Structure formats: structure tokens, C-alpha cells
């Protein structure tokens, strides 16, 4: 089951080519890793998949439908959500931040708060609900951002460097949360340059270097 289908895809900024993956079929079931050193184009790829960064060449399809960017891409953005590296939280309480995810997706009334609380509990942040988003530690911020993304009910979550610059204890915790999440049916793509992520729980792994795909391995052994 192909999820993302990239054709002749390229993203250029000014003079530099950030991403040049040509044709690529990217199935997303469970956890997919996108690895490579800094500057390899991982973030750019995720932003394209999220519908936020329009490619300078080529097309993107999700489940066979062409993905629009800009205003028209609202439907796609509701199916696919990106959590950026060092995620941005709004100037509100934690619960309000997470609830925004559900609100943005179009949920209303009681359901919004219910989903928000559930997502916070799932991320182990229930106790943070009444806190101001500004006063959280790094690890707490990431978990809240993750809860917010979960609350949207998106089919696919794109996580950009979720454990970069996080201490090992919180890193471990985050990894566990994410892999558990992947197990529940939400498709998750994690981009990372950290070797700790490599392991049996990753169903597929895409290796990038200098904007190009250098390797793509799938759990079932196909490449």
C-alpha cells in the first residue's frame, strides 16, 4: 500500500538544491525512519510530505491523489501533520495547546477537550494540563507537541528530529511513546541523525545524503 508517491521531485532554495529525490514510492505503515547527516534534506522532505513546502519541480501524491499546496491543501494537511524540530507552542495553557490540534482538525465542543485530555494522558503529560506552555522543560515541550499532533487525529505524523538535543532519559521515554504510537496504526515518519533509533521496530528506513536517496530498505526486505 503506497502512501506517498513522489515523481521527479526537487526542491531548490536560491542557488542550492536541498532535495532531489526523483521518483520515490514511500509506504508508511507503522514507523518509517528517514536518516542521514545534518543538511541531508530530511527536514525538507518532511515539509514537502506535510504539504507545507511546495516543490520547485515534480509532484507529490498521497494515496493516489495529487497533493495541493497553499490554501487548497487544507484537506491534505488535515490528514498529515508535521511536528517540527524544537516545536512551537502557542502562548496558552498546555491543555489549550493540545486542544488546538483537535480544533484545527474540525472537532467541536466537548469532543475537543476529551481528545485533548486523552492525548495528554497518552503522552504521560496529564499533570501538565493547567500549566503555561512557556514554562515547560525541553522534554515536556516535545511531549506536549506530540500530544497536540495526536489530538488532530491525523493519519500520518511526521516527526522532525524528535529526540535531538534531549537528554537520554527523556529521549528514551519519547522513543518509547513514539514506537508505541506507531504500533497503534498511525503511520509515523521520524527523521533523525541519531543512531539509537535504528532497530527492529522501524518498518522501513530511507537514507538521505546531500538531498539524494542513497538507500531505502523495507521490513519485508524489498528496497
Amino acid at each position, binding site marked *: 500500500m503506497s502512501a506517498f508517491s513522489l515523481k521527479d521531485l526537487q526542491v531548490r532554495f536560491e542557488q542550492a538544491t536541498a532535495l532531489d529525490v526523483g521518483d520515490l514510492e514511500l509506504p508508511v505503515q507503522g514507523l518509517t525512519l528517514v536518516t542521514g547527516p545534518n543538511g541531508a534534506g530530511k527536514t525538507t522532505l518532511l515539509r514537502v510530505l506535510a504539504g507545507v513546502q511546495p516543490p520547485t519541480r515534480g509532484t507529490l501524491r498521497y494515496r493516489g491523489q495529487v497533493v495541493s499546496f497553499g490554501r487548497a491543501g487544507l484537506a491534505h494537511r488535515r490528514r498529515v501533520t508535521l511536528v517540527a524540530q524544537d516545536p512551537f507552542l502557542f502562548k496558552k495553557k498546555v*491543555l*489549550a495547546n493540545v*486542544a*488546538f490540534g*483537535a*480544533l484545527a482538525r474540525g472537532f*467541536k*465542543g*466537548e469532543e*475537543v*477537550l476529551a481528545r*485533548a485530555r486523552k492525548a495528554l494522558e497518552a503522552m504521560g503529560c496529564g499533570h501538565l494540563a493547567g500549566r503555561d506552555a512557556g514554562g515547560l522543560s525541553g522534554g515536556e515541550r516535545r511531549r506536549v507537541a506530540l500530544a497536540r499532533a495526536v489530538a488532530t487525529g491525523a493519519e500520518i505524523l511526521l516527526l522532525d528530529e524528535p529526540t535531538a538535543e534531549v537528554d537520554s532519559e527523556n529521549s528514551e521515554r519519547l522513543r518509547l511513546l513514539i514506537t508505541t504510537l506507531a504500533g497503534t496504526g498511525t503511520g509515523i515518519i521520524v527523521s533523525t541523525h541519531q543512531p539509537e533509533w535504528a532497530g527492529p521496530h522501524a518498518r522501513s528506513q530511507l537514507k538521505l545524503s546531500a538531498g539524494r536517496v542513497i538507500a531505502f530498505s523495507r521490513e519485508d526486505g524489498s528496497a
Partner: protein
Amino acid sequence: MGPMIHRNFNKLGWLLIVLAASVLQPFGSRLLAQERLKLATTTSTDNSGLLKHLHPAFEKAAGVKIHTIAVGTGKALALGRNGDVDVVLVHARAAEDRFVADGDGINRRDVMANDFIIVGPSSDPAGIRDKKDGVEAVKRIAGKKARWFSRGDDSGTHKKEMELWNAASMKPSGQWYAALGQGMGKTLLAADEKLGYTLTDRGTYIAMSEGKKISLEVLVEGDERLFNPYGVIAVNPKKHAHVKYDVAMKYIEFLTSEPGQNLIASYRMNGKVLFFPVRTYAQRGK
């Protein structure tokens, strides 16, 4: 988040409703309120307090509210010319006559008069005290280059001052002559501050000196040239169809007939008589 947003919206909503209500009130009250007659007059007339003494009787009898706009003589007549007021009350005969001749105003009537005086420091460096001749006084002041403060704003007072200089065949200028472009109160304050001379209407002088704001003294008074007659003129409805001509005529009628004239005669400022209703001097043929 939903309920949270709603709580904020409610607070905001109520605040906006209260604000809107308080802001719209004057507009609503204008629709429901009584008619208003717009009168343009000079600041010195308004500041004398006469109108506060005079208007309530008219407002009650005619069921009309008078809105007084106090500006300089030139501006008052300009407002009449533009049709932005319904009636003008000023004290600058030449300008009034021009106003009527130009067709901007009709039915000019004499109303009352007060007088101008020349005031100055008690030391009186130009030696004009008790001279009783305004032209002689300004000649002396110019001769001694004593400090003189002029309204310089084309007001009735300023025009009267220029009449004196013209009669003296002089065009005053120099360090000693300061044209301020300010109202009478401010001009008196400046003259007081710098120990200079100035021409003022008696009303403003009384108000300021009784209020201990200035210590200038009356040096020249009683010169017939310093006589300051007031005229009331209705704005010509032929030029501005919208003006409240009928009400304006009622007002003019009020000012020139017994009730108005009595009120003018009875007005006191700090116990002193300020204005002489026209009936008391009409026989003099002025």
C-alpha cells in the same frame, strides 16, 4: 479549547456592547433632542459670561438649545459665510458691513456695546496714564519703543488696535511690538509677564485682574474711539437654505427687545457693569 474560546468571546462581546452604547449615545440623543441654533461669536464675548446669563431665558421661551462656538472674529464671520452656523454675534463694524454687503448675512442689528481700554504696568514707562486719548497713547508708546502686545489675530480687538495705529499714521513694527496671534486672556498674561502695554476689552481685563492673574492697570479709557459696539447678523438663507433662519430671527428679536436688553443691562462681572444695551445709546446716533 472551544469552551475556553467562548468564555473569552462573551467577556469581549459584553465589553463591546457597553462601549458601543456609550459611544452611540450622543448620536441618538441628537436625533431625539430639541432643535439647536448654532451661534458663532468671539472668545471675549463668551468668556465675559454674558451669554450664560442671557441664553437660558431664550432657550426656555423658544424651546431651542443654543450651541455657542467661540472663535476669533474673522473665524466667526467665516463660519457664517460657509453656512456652518445660523447666526453670528461679533464686534467689528467694518467686517460686519462687508459680511452683509457680500450677501452672506442679513438683518444686522445693533445689540449692545462695551469698551476697550489700554492697560499697562503700574510703572507706565511711556507716561500715558489718564491721557484719555487712545491715538496719543499709542504714539507715545511707539515713540518710547515701550513693549506692546498685540492680538495679531484679526479679531475685533485687533482690528480696533489697528484703527488706533492707522489714526496715528503708524505701522508698528520692531522688537518692542509683539503680535501674538493669541486670545485676549493669553495676550494679557504675556503683557503682564513682560510688563508691557496692550489694548483689551474691559470684560476680559476685569475677569483676569479680579482673579489676581494679572496686575496691569487701566491707563487709558473713555476715548470714544475705544467704544466697542456689537452686532448680531443672521446668516442669509438665500445662500444657505439649510440654516435655521426663523430661529435666528427669533434670537435677534430676543436680543434687541426688552427681555434681552434687560438681561444685558443687568449682567455684572464681579459686581461691575460690563455691557450697555443699545437702547441706552441709540439716541446718540451710533
